[in-house]
């Protein structure tokens, strides 16, 4: 069937590397993987001519054609299920949720089908399920969520959330090449954040899934975080430095499976741990990390493990409410001071 609309110009192939934004890095990563491996294809709502709600897949359809850039009905269960089926057949689908909040509509497919195939009958599902997550843009309860803890208790899924362009590109490529299902969360606030613009290599590279990164080295206290909260942690660290506190920031990058070694090595060095995430605190993955530290690094601790998250509420729309709900630099600074003084 002919498509109803044509673009006048073929999109330009993105540069390899260069100085890029977060969104551009992800787009480059998908683009290069589609060039490298013809089994890779993109599937989701409005990902074709429109290029996705956040333009992550912009131009792909012109280059790779509608067979490899598939616009779907509003049917998340079908998107996930079809990606799984295609992956079983040896393809490498990259499925997009228009907002990660809509992952709930594909929940059953992800947690029961995708996550359990290899375990049950040895059939891996090499598929990526990606989408914009996160709050702070006044988008209200249904376009702002962070969903990692919905899936943390589902063995068989991997979860990745980058905090900068370099990692975003390296991780999306690794996710596409991974033999198992990977949920890939992109904080929408980072997409075009000028502060994150960064030079990335021209050459093909990946960032290994399952490896955290020391985003800032320090000796007094470890802030363990990921995604957009890495920036909150770094800002807090800078402020605390002026008070003579030397903060280490761990950027988890992969949430499932957790990089236990990097977390534990940091806490054993600093003896103080503060876990920071943007999802509500109760039931958030901070609890899992705190449990790990309590079990494996108890003797090294000089203070209780502290968790900072959003308040235990939905994400509200109005700016004063949303600001109250989300963890702020000030909350991290205050908690870190008390933790250091404990």
């Amino acid at each position, binding site marked *: 069937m002919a498509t109803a609309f044509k673009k006048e110009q073929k999109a330009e192939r993105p540069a390899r590397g260069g100085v890029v934004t977060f969104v551009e890095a992800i787009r480059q990563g998908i683009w290069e993987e589609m060039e490298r491996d013809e089994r890779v294809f993109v599937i989701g709502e409005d990902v074709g001519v429109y290029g996705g709600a956040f333009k992550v897949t912009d131009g792909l359809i012109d280059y790779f054609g509608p067979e490899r850039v598939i616009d779907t009905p509003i049917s998340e269960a079908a998107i996930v299920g079809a990606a799984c089926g295609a992956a079983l057949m040896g393809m490498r689908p990259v499925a997009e949720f228009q907002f990660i909040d809509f992952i709930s509509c594909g929940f059953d497919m992800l947690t029961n089908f995708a996550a359990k195939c290899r375990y049950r009958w040895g059939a891996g599902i090499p598929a990526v399920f990606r989408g914009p997550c996160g709050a702070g843009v006044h988008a209200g309860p249904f376009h702002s969520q962070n969903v990692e803890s919905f899936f943390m208790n589902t063995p068989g899924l991997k979860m990745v959330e980058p905090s900068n362009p370099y990692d975003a590109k390296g991780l999306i490529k690794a996710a596409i090449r991974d033999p198992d299902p990977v949920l890939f969360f992109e904080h929408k606030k980072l997409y075009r954040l000028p502060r994150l613009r960064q030079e990335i290599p021209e050459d093909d590279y990946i960032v290994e899934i399952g490896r955290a990164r020391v985003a800032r080295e320090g000796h007094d206290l470890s802030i363990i975080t990921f995604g957009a909260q890495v920036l909150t942690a770094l800002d807090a660290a800078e402020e605390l430095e002026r008070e003579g506190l030397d903060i280490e920031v761990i950027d988890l990058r992969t949430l499932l499976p957790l990089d236990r070694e990097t977390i534990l090595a940091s806490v054993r060095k600093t003896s103080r741990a503060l876990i920071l995430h943007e999802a509500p605190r109760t039931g958030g993955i901070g609890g899992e990390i705190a449990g790990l530290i309590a079990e494996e690094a108890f003797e090294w601790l000089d203070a*209780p493990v502290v968790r900072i998250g959003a308040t235990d509420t939905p994400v509200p729309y109005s700016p004063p409410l949303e600001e109250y709900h989300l963890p702020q630099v000030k909350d991290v600074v205050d908690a870190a001071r008390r933790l250091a003084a404990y």
Partner: protein
Amino acid sequence: MTNKRGSRGKSTRANGKKRTSNRTETARTAEVVDAATVALDEAGTGEIAQRGGNGASATSVAMQTTAGRDSVHLVEIVEGVQAPAIDEGLICSLETGLTREQMLELYYYLKLTRLVEERLVNLYRQNKVIGGVYRSLGQEATAVGTCYALEPGDFIAPLIRDLGAVLTKGIRPRAIFAQYMAKAWGPSEGRDLNIHFGDMERGFIGPISHLGDMIPVMTGVLLAARMQQKKIVAIAYIGDGGMSTGAFHEGLNFAAVQRLPLIVVAEHNCYAYSTPTHKQTAVKNLADKAAGYGIPGYIVDGNDIIACYETTKRAVDFARSGGGAVLIEAKTYRRKGHAEHDDQRYVPREELELWEKRDPVDRYERHLTSQGIATREELDQITARIKQELEEEVAWAESSPLPEPERAAYNVYDNSIVPPAFRPKVLER
């Protein structure tokens, strides 16, 4: 007009009869068809189109999309009828049980919807609305006309573009403005956006963003109403896109087997974000899907407010008298992008121009004046009254403070049982 399909869906219209003053004497303004047959044949639709062009009654709609466009998703128009011929001078369905006062009230709500949205766009451009603005420009008649067929005790679950239904249900514009502006006096006190709030008193169930989810919810509303021996019906609105969800299917199927009085209004506005309808569904008409649920399907011209009212009225009567669920497809068009940020680069210009001529407000004004129902001056007076009202409503909303930050912590649970979710103190005792 004779029905080309034969006996089924037989029209009971009295030809040439303009209107009656009895609202309950419902004229047949749409083809109601049984579960197995929905789509109109081409000859029939052609005739309808021509009659519309002559300024006479347009019944079940026939529409044409952009010439040459591959559009399996709209009822095709018979060859030889040029698009402009059916659009210029087009008025609304002549057969109606609405009184003059009711028709003017309908005009009030239609115009109110248009003007509230225009104000919202202004406020958006002044950065006073910080979330998105989702226009229903060009499709307002569907929401207003269908909702107007409900009784006060009936329920609706609107979509984001159904501001018209919300207003018709009696929600004041000030609530909408305050909500969009994230103000403390808005119905959700700044917690949610746009029309994402509810009002049980007025029969307005607050929707969520996740499309399709309101269909099963409304099924539950009606299940309960039946247990409570309430004779109410409900309208759940859904888009051409939202119909592709699993929740839609499960909800409508359940309502159908329970024979619950659920009226699903499928707003066929040709796009779901950027996706044209032929990528959502392989059926020709959305109403064709009724067959899969064993319920009646109607097709109505969504830009003819009278037809929208009459068709829904009929469905409402059918549902309320125990007939069960009904699917109404309203054929219309989304003339703006998905939201204000969307440049509509995927929409051909000609298509927009074509549909501008089919503007439902212009069309209803033309109808009211040409049929001697109201004078231009009377309509201008209504418009002036609305503008005056909106000045006050916007001023009220603007005068509201933003919510206090700590209010974010309230109302997650019943706070008489569970305390508010304040930001926890860290290492503070």
